[in-house]
């Protein structure tokens, strides 16, 4: 190391700027890291593309309007996923309806109102823990509380309430992060004008945090849409040939329908499952597009 330094400094003696001795090695390391990062990104994209290609190859043949409008059937030619698609829309719509106000409300309370004491810290830690609990556990909770205790039965409302519980911790944590990112100077400015806590939260903190809150909500809703395990437990039916008609209707959802088709031995049903996956993915894509649109709308209201 030191001999290299003397050699270099002698060699560069005539140069107006003396090069640090380890520059070549640092540059080599930097480009190596850059390549490694590129490779892992490419790997992720290639795997995803391969999966999509595989699904499309087997499912594309079955994509048609009939798939969307027919009900499930024993004959693959007649099989469709209308009840599952509507079931997903019902369950996810209600989930969002329950989880959004409760989640954002809890986050606003924890960040803007709650005193910084042991009780609050305990609460915050436990919410983070709840986010890491396997979804099947929420299913069992839903089965015990909503299906049996509240006697709501194996219905749309039980499923939606269970899903809402599942995504609440994630919504609360994401909303807390978004609220914490609002600069304190903004709150001080509002308080100094004689505003109450609620006026500060309503007119400044929540609007400024809204894009971040929406991101959290959409991510968790997307997760809920693909979730099967808890609904399996709270009783989404596998074979449903009618539309869900209301809160207390029996129902199925897309992931359940996919599972039901995929476990049948016939190749046609396997391919139908692939087609249903494509429908589910398109639904997710549409949801995310809506989220991006909403984010930009809310971001416009705040003139940073």
């Amino acid at each position, binding site marked *: 190391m030191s001999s290299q330094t003397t050699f270099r400094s002698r060699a560069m003696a005539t140069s107006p700027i003396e090069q640090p001795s380890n520059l070549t090695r640092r540059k080599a390391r930097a480009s190596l890291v850059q390549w490694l990062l590129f490779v892992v990104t490419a790997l992720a994209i290639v795997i995803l593309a391969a999966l999509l290609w595989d699904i499309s190859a087997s499912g594309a043949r079955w994509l048609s309007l009939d798939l969307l409008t027919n009900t499930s059937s024993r004959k693959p030619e007649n099989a469709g996923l209308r009840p599952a698609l509507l079931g997903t829309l019902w369950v996810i719509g209600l989930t969002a309806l329950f989880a959004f106000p409760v989640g954002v409300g809890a986050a606003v309370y924890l960040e803007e109102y709650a*005193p*910084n004491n042991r009780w609050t810290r305990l609460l915050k830690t436990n919410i983070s823990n709840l986010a890491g609990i396997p979804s099947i556990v929420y299913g069992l909770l839903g089965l015990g509380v909503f299906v049996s205790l509240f006697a709501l039965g194996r219905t749309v409302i039980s499923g939606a309430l269970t899903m809402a519980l599942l995504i609440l911790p994630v919504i609360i944590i994401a909303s807390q992060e978004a609220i914490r990112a609002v*600069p304190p*100077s*903004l*709150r*001080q*400015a*509002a*308080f*100094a*004008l*004689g*505003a*109450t806590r609620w*006026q500060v939260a309503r*007119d*400044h903190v929540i609007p*400024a945090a809204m894009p971040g809150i929406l991101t959290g909500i959409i991510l968790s809703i997307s997760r809920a849409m693909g979730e099967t395990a808890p609904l399996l437990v709270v009783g989404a039916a596998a074979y449903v040939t009618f539309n869900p008609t209301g809160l207390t209707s029996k129902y199925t959802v897309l992931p359940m329908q996919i599972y039901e088709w995929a476990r049948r031995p016939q190749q046609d049903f396997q391919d139908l499952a692939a087609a249903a996956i494509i429908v589910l993915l398109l639904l997710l894509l549409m949801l995310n597009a809506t989220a991006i649109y909403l984010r930009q709308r809310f971001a416009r209201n*705040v*003139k*940073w």
Partner: protein
Amino acid sequence: MSVTLDESTIKSWTSDAGAVVSIHDLRVFYGNFLAVTGVTFDVPKHQITALIGPSGCGKSTVLRCINRMNDLIPGARVEGQILYHGQDICTSQVDPVEVRRRIGMVFQKPNPFPKSIYENIAWGVKINGITGNMDELVERSLRQAALWDEVKDKLQESGLALSGGQQQRLCIARTLAINPDVILMDEPASALDPISTLKIEDLMRELERQYTIVVVTHNMQQAARVSDQTIFFSLDEHRHGVLIEAGRTRDMFTNPRDQRTEDYITGRFG
């Protein structure tokens, strides 16, 4: 139980005593740390009081006590008395929201709301339930803050699109719009260039006729230029902030009574 600040007692008390805010033996703790101790001074009506002193001596802490902004800092505790028109505003019976509505504040870093210039002014007016012609009120406040001519054609643009000096004058206009009695300014020009600073100082001179102003500043020339009364703070041997000297600005800058004051204002202090 909440005590309301009654308009008639305010008027009668002010006319006898002349001080709008009167601080008696103020002590401020952050957790167990005593940040400021034994601070006593009066803020005379329609004058500018400058709080000066080295960093960390508690000038801003004292300022934030006057409109209960310290309530927002976890662990902050205030002892002693701050009489606003004769009524102690440091007790839990007094609602800080009501105090802040009468004692406005301008911060060190300009902090306009991320809203339009118009809304920046109108928001405080709306939430305080003040009624009247909002367009006129916005114009009057911006004129008072010497900003109207620069922004009258772009009232719907973001307050954050303005320059730093303009943003600070917008913050002053926003404070004026709710018609406070006292305006607290925490180093209002320290983030600004010399020309913007001069504009803020001119503005303070102008506002002094209608409002009582308390300003924290690190800039000795500024204190000498704008203030009528100067309060000098420093740190004692236990590193608690203490009041060293208070008096007419003219007297203090020409003939300081305390050696520490003289060292500080002549620049010999660290």
